[in-house]
């Protein structure tokens, strides 16, 4: 079974109606891939969704309805929660990173980096390929299989 974890940027492109992302996602699905998300990606996406025009509560409920529909239709195969093992793994990853490099400062999205470590830990824990455009946050992790999706947004 071919399973992959998709990061929040790809989810954002899909939900924003970017045809390149929607094509990529459904081509992957048609080719037998089971595309999954981390709950962290959903949390990251919530921040973007509240910026949509319209009443905030309705906009959020619409987004959550769309995610539920994607789950029912198996467009999203699974949404992984943060377990104790994943949080420990993410902690170890961040520790390893700090041993080798200087982490981004507070002003330069250390929070985003911590989210990425939780996503990486999820991919490692469940042996999933991680699809992301933010390759430099992940490519130093030896036991993680990271790929860039082969689409780009035209405009």
């Amino acid at each position: 079974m071919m399973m992959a974890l998709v990061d929040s940027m790809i989810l954002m492109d899909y939900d924003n109606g970017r045809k390149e992302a929607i094509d990529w996602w459904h081509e992957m699905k048609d080719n037998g891939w089971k595309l999954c998300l981390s709950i962290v990606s959903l949390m990251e996406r919530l921040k973007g969704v509240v910026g949509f025009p319209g009443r905030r509560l309705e906009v959020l409920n619409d987004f959550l309805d769309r995610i539920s529909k994607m789950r029912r239709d198996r467009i999203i195969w699974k949404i992984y929660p943060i377990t104790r093992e994943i949080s420990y793994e993410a902690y170890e990853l961040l520790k390893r990173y700090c041993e080798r490099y200087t982490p981004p400062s507070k002003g330069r999205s250390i929070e985003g980096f911590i989210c990425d470590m939780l996503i990486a830990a999820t991919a490692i824990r469940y042996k999933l390929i991680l699809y992301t455009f933010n390759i430099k946050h992940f490519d130093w992790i030896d036991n993680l299989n990271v790929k860039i999706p082969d689409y780009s947004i035209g405009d």
Partner: protein
Amino acid sequence: MRLSTDEKIELAKKIEGKLVGITLSEWNKWQSYVKVYGLKRGLEFAKVLKDSPSLRPGQKQSYRTILEVMRRYQKELNQLSKEELAEILGYIGRWIVARRVRL
């Protein structure tokens, strides 16, 4: 049934919020078809295209979601005049554009 502009925008937002994996280009094509041939034939058109082997997977997803969501609102939309329906479909297109802003 006559709707005010605010009510039309409201209904358009409600419909747009339910559309999963919709692209603006497929929406525009579909709404142009509906303007000419009406909603009933528009839904039949979407039904054919959602499984069409000549379309890319993303395009098929757009027609799947159009068919599912617009069927749900069919009764409500059938009560509108042709002009009102066209206006609401246009507003939905605008809401789809608004969703595309990268935040």
